[in-house]
Structure formats: C-alpha cells, structure tokens
C-alpha cells in the first residue's frame, strides 16, 4: 500500500491541522486575564455557568425520562406497533433544536393558535390567565429534551438487545420473577451505555446556540457570541470558549469511560431475544402512549406545523430561496467530500502503520465531534486571521496590492471549521468499512499476482463503496443543519438555509422561515431513515 512512511507523515500533518483549533482554544485556558475578562467574571460569568448547568441538569433528566422507557419497551416487550415505533421514535433526531424551538413558539405564543383558541373558548383576555411561557429556560429544556432523547434511546436499546437472554434466565433460575430480573439485572447492565448516550445528548446541549439565543437564556455559547460581536474582543471570547471546553472535556471523559465499561458489560455472544414480555390491554395502551408521545411532540406536531406554514402561509418561493439552497447544498457537498477524503487517508495510514503516534493523533483529530461549533469557529478564526494579517503585512512590505482576508473572510474558514467538527463522523464510517477488509484479503490478492493498486480498485473500492457514501451523506446532512459556526465564519452576505431560517425566526417572521426549515428537516430525515433496521452502536447522527 502506498509509500509506507510518506502516508504516515501526510496523515500526521493532516491530523495536526485538524487539531489546531482545539489547541488554540486550550492555550487560552490559562490566559485568564485582560480587562474585559475581569468584567465578564464580575458580571455575567456566573449567569452563564448557572444557566448552562441548569440546562444540562434539565435536559439530562428529560432525555433519560424519554429515552430509557422507550428503549426498554421496544426491546423487551411486545405490544401492537412495536416494530414501527422502535424506529419512528428516532424521527425527532431530524429536527434541529432551534427549528423546533421557534415552531413551538409560533404554536404556543400569545398570538398563536393554542392561546387564541383558549381565549375564544373562555372569553378571557390578556393577563387574565396563566400560560406556560415557552421562551424560558424551562422551555429550552423541554425543546432540547424532545429532540436529543434519541441519543439515549439508541445507546440504551443497543445495550438491551446485546444482553444475552441467558443473564435474564440465570436471574429467573435463581428465583427472580421476570419483571424483577429485568429491573435488577437488565437495567444496571445497560447503565454504562445509557450514561454514554446521556453524555452525547449533553454535549449537544452545550453546543446549542440557536435555541438558547432565541429563548433569551444566557449560556456560554450566547456569551461567546455576545463577547465576540458585541465587544469585538476575540481574546475574551476565546477565554469563554476555553471555559466551555473544560466542561465538554469532562463529558468526553465520562462518555469514553462509560463506553469502555459498556464493552465489559455486554455479553460476548448475543442471541436474538426470543421471549419478549407480551403486553395486553391497558398495559399495551400505556406502552404505545409512552412511545407515541415523544414522537408526536418531538416530530409530528412541529413538522406538520412547519409544512402548513411553508405550503399555505409563507411567501411564494423565489430566486432567493434557490440561491440559499444552492449555497447550502454546494457548501455541504464540498465539505462532505473533503471530510470523506481526509477520513480515507487517515484510515489507510492507521491501517498500514498502526503505531502509537499515528493512532494518537488520529484520535485527537476525532475530538471535534464533541466540540460546540462556537468553540471551533473561534479556534479557526484566530490562527487564520493571524495568517491573513501576516500575509497582508508581507504584501505591503513589497508594495503589492493587499490581498484582503483571503482565509478568515472566505469560505476556506467555513470549510476548515466543518472539517474539524465533522471529520470524526466520516472517520468512524470509513474506518469501520476498512476494518472489515482483513489484511489476508490483500495478501490473497497479491499472492495471485495483483499489484497494490489493482487490489485497491478490485477489492477495496467495491467493498468500501457503501461506507464512503455513508460518510459523505452524514457529513452533508450535518453541515446543512449546522448553525453557530456558520453564523460566525460565513463570508459577508453569504447565507445558507440554516442561517436564513434562524435570522427570519429571530425577526419574528416564523412563517417565512418555514420553507428553509422544512427543507432542513426533510434532508435530516435521510440518515435517520438509514438507521431504520440497523440500530447503530456508534454515535448516530
């Protein structure tokens, strides 16, 4: 395969580049100084901290309450509709939190259909009655729980399915009732997987910008934006980002630790679960309701509302929408191709020389998936702006025309950030595809007189095609949904569907934001549908 050392060196250089933004932000962790930082510390930092912690606590409780029961019911019990419900409860994953947030705002606001209906029914006026205020910390917790619980569901369900039937049977043979064996054996055995799913959901919670900003909840991400745009202080924004990074690191450690334990806890041989607990009558109704409720509130109701707005109430789609869609799709496509290409190079480097330095750097390059887009955006901006200004200085010294901000002010910065954020996703898919090609297949081909390139084209390409396509598709969809990094790094006057939908919603033009939103949701459905049938063990996107 390739030139042995050349490929490793190339891979190490790529991995180092990808790790650069994180290293830049980390370097600010110990630079807690400056006037503005002191000011932030005295005034708003405790708010950010308290709100972020409350948000994590609330969303954590929410996703556990929605994710674990649904996983348990669909993997351990049998009731009508179990089969289609077991994948339909994944649908809320297609709904970005900021989109569900403004959809529900439109539904539940004072002027929205629900409150109007209540007023018409009761004859009450403004201020005469209490109604749930959606634009609050509590509202943000509910919105995020509704779209993030599938992470817990997926991990917990995989754990429940992997547990061998015999461990439950051992419990029964020792005199436990089946229900008690389930509760005292199955649930504790799945705990590491549940915690891993929980930490993934919490990473997404910390990464969220659109929802908390729209609901007016001050967290670390909104603080970073405010510091960056309001005060124009990159250093202070980076210091805030570094504090947020410390939180995320804790979650990463928790997730990795749980995953390791999850491996020890899962049975070596997994048999198909033969005996589900049959639920009849009232119990079946309860089970169906438990699974149907998050699906209704997390997907069906908001998607229907969006579709209604987009079709009947929004302004007819014009050229502006076409150019938005073109911007989004082409940007996402290019980012997906870059991520997949880099993933292929890194996977081959690891396969050819699985030595520690290469493995460690590639693992570091995979960190980005856990990092909020705001952190990555600031981490990308600082080194690129420095490079730009050095270039400008260099040009001026030679008396040439200044090139302008060719890196930090262009799509280069955006694509760099996307690659950092989503490389891990592509890497996971490509790596698992390559792992299935045992080295003995290469050797068999070569002992029959084929060159390394012939082996790549005749054996690897056909066997890897689907996992590379999966990598491209998942990165494509993720880029399409991405909001905070795009907001910070997009070139002047460059808009994507996600950014435009968010801007229109912020201007209270909820109806006009619907066409772009429904488009994002529909594209987001593709990877969720791909999960249908195969409950993935790795982090689903």
């Amino acid at each position, binding site marked *: 395969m390739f030139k042995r050392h050349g490929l490793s060196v190339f891979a190490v250089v790529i991995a180092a580049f990808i790790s650069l933004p994180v290293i830049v932000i980390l370097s600010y962790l110990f630079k807690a100084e400056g006037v503005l930082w002191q000011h932030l510390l005295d005034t708003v930092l405790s708010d950010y901290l308290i709100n972020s912690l409350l948000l994590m606590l609330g969303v954590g409780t929410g996703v556990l309450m929605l994710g674990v029961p649904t996983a348990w019911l669909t993997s351990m019990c049998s009731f009508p509709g179990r089969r289609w419900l077991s994948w339909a409860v994944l649908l809320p994953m297609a709904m970005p939190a900021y989109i569900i947030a403004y959809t529900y705002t439109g539904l539940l606001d004072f002027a929205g259909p629900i409150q109007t209906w209540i007023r018409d029914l009761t004859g009450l006026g403004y201020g005469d009655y209490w109604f749930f205020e959606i634009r609050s910390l509590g509202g943000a917790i509910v919105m995020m729980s509704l779209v993030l619980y599938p992470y817990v569901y997926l991990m917990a369900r995989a754990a429940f399915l992997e547990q061998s039937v015999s461990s439950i049977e051992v419990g029964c043979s020792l005199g436990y009732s089946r229900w008690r064996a389930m509760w005292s054996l199955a649930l504790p055995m799945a705990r590491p997987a549940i915690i891993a799913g929980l930490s993934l959901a919490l990473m997404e919670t910390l990464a969220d910008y659109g929802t908390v900003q729209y609901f007016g909840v001050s967290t670390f991400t909104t603080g970073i934006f405010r510091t960056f745009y309001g005060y124009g202080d990159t250093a202070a924004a980076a210091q805030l980002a570094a504090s947020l990074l410390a939180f995320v690191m804790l979650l990463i450690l928790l997730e990795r630790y749980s995953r390791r334990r999850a491996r020890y806890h899962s049975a070596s041989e997994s048999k198909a679960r033969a005996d589900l607990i049959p639920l009849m009558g009232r119990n079946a109704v309860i089970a169906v309701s438990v699974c149907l409720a998050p699906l209704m509130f997390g997907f069906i109701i908001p998607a229907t509302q969006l579709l209604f707005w987009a079709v009947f109430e929004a302004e007819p789609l014009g050229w502006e929408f076409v150019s938005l869609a073109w911007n989004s799709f082409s940007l996402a496509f290019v980012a997906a191709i870059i991520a997949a290409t880099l993933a292929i190079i890194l996977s081959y480097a690891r396969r050819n020389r699985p030595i520690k330095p290469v493995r460690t750097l590639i693992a570091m390059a995979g960190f980005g998936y856990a990092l909020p887009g705001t952190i990555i955006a600031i981490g990308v901006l600082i080194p690129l702006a420095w490079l730009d200004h050095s270039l400008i200085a260099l040009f001026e010294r030679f008396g040439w025309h200044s090139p302008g901000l060719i890196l930090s002010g262009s799509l280069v910065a955006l694509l760099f950030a996307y690659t950092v954020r989503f490389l891990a996703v592509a890497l996971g898919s490509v790596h698992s595809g390559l792992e299935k090609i*045992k080295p*003995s297949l290469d050797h068999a081909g070569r*002992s*029959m*007189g084929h060159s390394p390139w012939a082996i790549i084209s005749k054996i690897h390409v056909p*066997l890897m095609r689907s996992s590379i396509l999966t990598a491209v598709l998942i990165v494509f969809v993720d880029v399409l949904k991405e909001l905070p990094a795009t907001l910070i790094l997009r070139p002047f006057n460059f808009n994507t569907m996600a950014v435009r939908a968010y801007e229109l919603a912020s201007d209270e033009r909820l109806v006009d934001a619907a066409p772009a939103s429904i488009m994002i949701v529909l594209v987001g459905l593709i990877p969720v549908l791909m999960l249908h049938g195969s409950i993935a063990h790795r982090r689903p996107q």
Partner: protein
Amino acid sequence: MTMSFDSSDQHLLVDNVSIAYGQHTIVQDVSLAVGVGEIGCLLGPSGCGKSTLLRAIAGFVPLQSGSISLAGKTLAKDDFCLLAEARDVGMVFQDVALFPHINIAANVAFGLHHWPKAEQVQRVEELLDLVGLSGYQERYPHALSGGQQQRVALARAMAPKPSFLLLDEPFSGLDAMLREELVPEVGAILRQEKIPGLLVTHDQTEAFTMADHVAVMNHGRIEQWDTAYNIYHKPDGRFVADFIGEGDFLACNVSSDTCVESPIGHLCSDRPHGFSAGQQAEVFIRPDDVLHLDDSPITGRILSKRFRGTHFLYRVLIAGNQTLFCFADSHHNHEIGEEIGIKLSLDHLMLF
C-alpha cells in the same frame, strides 16, 4: 543448527533465514528445503515463528538475513525482496479470505487476470471439479459452509498454477470431523496436481497425514527437519520428543553402548544409543513401548485410565515413584488402584 542442501534437485530453499520485528527476533537461522513434488510442514506450538516464516516466503514479511529461493530464482536475500505478486507462490489463509463481494467463479478466477476469458472459464470449472464443488460458480462465499469455503480457497490458490503453495493453518477453523476428511483430500489434490507445498500447523496428525518432511519449530528455530517417522521415533532433542506424541522421561544409568539400568529394569537397544557406560541419562518411553501383560513380573499400580475404543491408556505407578503410560488391549478393563503386569517392548532406546 546448520544444514547444507544440494540445490540442484531442491525446489524451495530457505537458507539461514532470520526475521525480526524491531528488536524482537521471531525466526533465527532457519534452513530447510522442499523438493519437487514434495510437501513440507512447519509444526510447532503457537508463537514459535512458523507462520512468520511462511509469510516471509510469501513475501509479506521482510528478512533480516539469509535468503529464500524458488526453482533457482532468488525471492529474498538481505535487502532484496521480490514483491509478493511477482513470486508465483500461492497461499491458502487460515481465515479463508474469500472476497465477499464476488461469486465463487470470480474468486477462483481472480489470479487468472492475464488469461483469455475462455481459458479462465475452463480452468475455474476444472478446479471446482477437482475440489468437488462443480456447479457452485454462481454462488457467493457467504452461502457456503466452512469446509466448502476452504475448498474454494484452495482452488483459488491453485488456479494460476503457482510453482509453490503455502498453507497457513488452513484447517484450524474447521471441526474435527471435517478436518479428518479434508486433510488427506487436500494432500492428495496437491500430489495429483504435482504442486509442491509447505503447510503450517500445530496439529501433528495434520502434519503426519500430509507432509513428506516435517520441521519441528520452537522459539524461532528448527529443532528437527525430518520425515514424520523419524520425528516420532528418533526425536532430536527433548523438545521434539516431548512435543510429538506422549511419553515419559525415566532417569537411568548407562551400563554399555547399547544398554541402560532403569527403575524398571535392564533395557537394551538394537543399536548404539550414543552414550557411554557410567553416564547419567534419561530414557524416553512412549505409551506404545509399554504393554500390559497379566503374568509379567514387573507390576504397576493404575493411577488413572482413559478408554479410547480400540485400547485403554493407563497411567501406572512403578518402582514407587515413576509414572508411565501403558497401552492395554480394549478388553483388559482394570480398576484404578489395581496392580497390573507390564512389559516393555523396546527395540531402540531414546536417551537424552
């Protein structure tokens, strides 16, 4: 050990080969030769370096020193290493390694890419016929049983008519019944096709069934390179004696060029045993050297017994502190603890 071979009638020549991964030496100063139409075998415990040596012959592992040649052509020597695809050496892998995305015919034809299409089809048919799988062309690997997959792998490796075939524990993934059926069959196919080969295994039955010559390897060295008969009956060193078959070492005093005094009496060989009178030595006794005879003057107490259908294998205690295996006729069913008569039937002595 050093060996020299007359290279004229030898096909595969491995000469003083050493292989190392970094500082760790895996194979050290190994020499062996496989003649035209012969099948050799590398036999040894896991980790002895036998698979590494095989992979070096295939061209997947570089040599540290020494040389490998095939039919007079150098495959590897010092820094020179002919690419695996240019060696004309076929290989059958332990994990079968059939390509999952193409059907059986395409798998077998994979090495025939330089052949005209019509000849490819004919050769595939010929080989599937040979391995007893004619008509399986259109099937895919996952639809075949383990034994069938290994037959296809053999057909695939033999299809381009390689000048040498390497077999890396090809039977270890199969169950005992299938192995018993497939091992002699594969040996017969190789001989019929006149393809010389080298088999790697840790199973001596496989080695004895298929190979003309067996190399017993330990810690990266060849302990003995000999026929199966000699490996069993004239082991060269304690390791070989102990690794091959069952047996016990008894301390003894050498009394003459052919005889020793042992705890079970005066034992004599029909040929000189290589030690001189007065030396201390150990004599190696195989289970089939010790027979059960009801009226023998020497007796032993049965410690344990294994019934093997055609015979009993007793573990007996003699002379107070020596234990031996003893073969007994299938009808001589004795109880544990019983004293039984035993008779030694040795025509040559293995002394160490």
